[in-house]
């Protein structure tokens, strides 16, 4: 088991490097570098920049040096000092801007993942056991609709319904009175009451596809002889289904985290923009629009890294569930 975990972690390292390179490329893509942007924006406000400060910044990010030196400096700043660079739009270190939002983003994605499982598992079992029943057709239909509606459209639709029929706005993650308040139990409860809307929106597509997967897996299992045997020896029907086939069908369920999680994080970003949640999405979009590249690149780097870690955890979980995986 330990060997498996070690191997998986080793696999994750090159992926992490690839992600960091992509994030770095995105930072470098717009013409000019951080300093030219800074000088231009300060000049437009009629200020002049202290050449010594400029030189210090140039050294800090290795600007003007070969590209790989810049990359190395960027990475080592992150690893050694937790310094992600400077956001020129906010005039703050990126690190002070992203952590809070990343935390909320990840909480939201994780809650959505739990929601997706909580819904997809029973519905998938139902659809498989009662194949071709009215309920199965209804869920299948809903599932296809869920896959076809883009997240942001669903968010818009829910906002419209909330506005039109309930006279309330559904945006945000906190009520106004808790917006700036420090974390407390009341704030947490308030967040939960707002949380379900983005969770439903982000989770719809994932739920739909997981139901299909669960249904297909369980159908395959249910046709196997051991199920017939269990039934023949007089096991009650719910035990016949829950004890073995569901457990076997669960494996792919866990392994799908690998692609459900990136999809959730993606969906979270765009849903957050529409619902203006205080998570990464809106800030990332704003950073990209104003070419605040260190901020944008750090977001992309951290979101992808968290996804890699999530996938890693899901693989370990899968290996715990299914001993065969460890030997591969």
């Amino acid at each position, binding site marked *: 088991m330990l060997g498996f975990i070690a191997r998986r972690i080793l696999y994750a390292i*090159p*992926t992490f490097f*690839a*992600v960091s390179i*992509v*994030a770095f490329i*995105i930072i470098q*893509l*717009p*013409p000019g570098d951080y300093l030219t942007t800074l000088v231009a924006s300060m000049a437009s406000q009629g200020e002049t920049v202290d050449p010594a400060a400029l030189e210090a910044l140039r050294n800090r990010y290795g600007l003007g040096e070969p590209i790989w030196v810049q990359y190395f400096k960027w990475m080592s700043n992150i690893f050694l000092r937790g310094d992600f660079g400077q956001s020129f739009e906010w005039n703050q270190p990126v690190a002070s801007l992203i952590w809070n939002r990343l935390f909320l983003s990840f909480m939201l994605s994780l809650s959505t993942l739990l929601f997706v499982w909580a819904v997809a598992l029973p519905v998938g079992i139902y659809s498989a056991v009662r194949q071709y029943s009215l309920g199965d057709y209804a869920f299948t239909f809903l599932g*296809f*609709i869920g*896959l*076809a*509606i*883009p*997240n*942001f*459209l669903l968010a*818009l*639709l829910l*906002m*419209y319904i909330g*506005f*039109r029929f309930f006279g309330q*706005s559904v*945006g945000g993650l906190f009520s106004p009175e808790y917006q700036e308040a420090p974390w407390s139990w009341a704030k947490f409860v308030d967040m939960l009451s707002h949380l379900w809307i983005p969770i439903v929106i982000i989770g719809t597509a994932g739920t739909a596809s997981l139901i299909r997967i669960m249904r297909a897996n369980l159908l395959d299992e249910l046709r196997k002889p051991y199920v017939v045997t269990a039934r023949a020896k007089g096991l009650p029907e719910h035990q016949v289904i829950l004890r073995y086939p569901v457990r076997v069908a669960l494996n792919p369920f866990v392994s799908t985290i*690998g*692609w459900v999680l*990136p*999809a959730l*994080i*993606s*969906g979270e*970003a*765009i849903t957050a*923009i*529409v619902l203006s949640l205080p998570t*990464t999405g809106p800030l*990332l*979009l704003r950073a*990209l*629009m104003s*070419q605040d590249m260190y901020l*944008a*690149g750090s*977001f*992309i780097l951290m*979101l*992808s890294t968290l*996804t*890699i870690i999530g*996938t890693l955890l899901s693989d370990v979980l899968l290996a715990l569930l299914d001993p065969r995986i460890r030997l591969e």
Partner: protein
Amino acid sequence: MTSEAQIMTPEVRPDPAVEEEARIYVASQWKLTWWRFRKHKVAMVSGAIVIFVYLVALFAEFLAPFPTDMYNSRYTFAPPQRVHLFLSTEEGLKFQPHVNGFDVEIDPVALRRTFVVDPDVVYPIGFFVEGFSYRLLGLFETNIHLIGPINPADPMYLLGADRLGRDVFSRLVFGTRISMSIGLVGVFLSFILGILLGGVSGLYGGMADNLIQRLIEFIRSVPTIPLWLGLAAALPMTWSPLAVYFGITVILSLIGWTDLARVVRGRFLTLRTEDFVMAARLDGASQQRIIWKYMVPSFTSHIIASLTLAIPGMILAETALSFLGLGLRPPIVSWGVLLQEAQNIRAVATAPWLLTPGIAVVVTVLALNFLGDGLRDAADPYSRG
């Protein structure tokens, strides 16, 4: 001769089951696929819808009553008009399709304009009326439109108007062209990448296979929307809309080719051990000949199914990017650009008809998904099930 032949033929009535079987034996693979596909009713209906949507894209100028940039500040956020077929005159009911005009009232409390239908103002409309001139399919100069007001200056808002008083219906029709074509072009690019990399991966195996598989895993493990956003934001603002269009397509396909590559690789791997490929190899056929003559034809149908299933992803991605303002930019009209108008809740609350491009997206994506599913089931006509 003929009579002799008739006499010689034994008088046996052919067994319908045997005949059916014989028909299947001699049918080509494409025929079998078609028979299989025909049984899938939902896929057939979806196929018809997809064809319809592409026809709309092809004949956008003919179907849209107005050009996309025609605005009328009198009718900002005008609601959809109802089409009446009959007009009551002194002589009784007369067949004359028409729409009614609006009385604009300013709500003193909300300071908002409200439109009240004025049944006395009649704007006759008709089929094949004259409007703005265009070149049909880029060939024939004409100004005939399928539907429109008989007097081109009359307002006709079948799906309402947006914040500049532009006709949402016309814009939706033109948006179909861009959105559907970006799906096709994007899929074509990812098809090239997918075939190339998937083929190398499946055919040669070993180191190349390993590298390409890692690359695919990497791309799939990254959350796509932040990545798309990052790449799309890097497109220079100075680019022309057309250049942006191609830039966006390239970005979408750079990330979207992985599924296709997997299908191609899987097919090559299974086919490599098939008897007929082995036979061809023993027969001394060259590698190129085996690939193009034997392997590729036997999975073309799978590729077509996968391509169909890849288009909706492209359409959704373009819509999302444009909706966020990082994809296509006006004056290009796509479904995503149109939905951008519906970005804030105020606009949606005053003009819910701005969400109609969303319906177009959902219907098209659903139809393409069902069609792709049907094609995938039909792609392997020899399997039972």
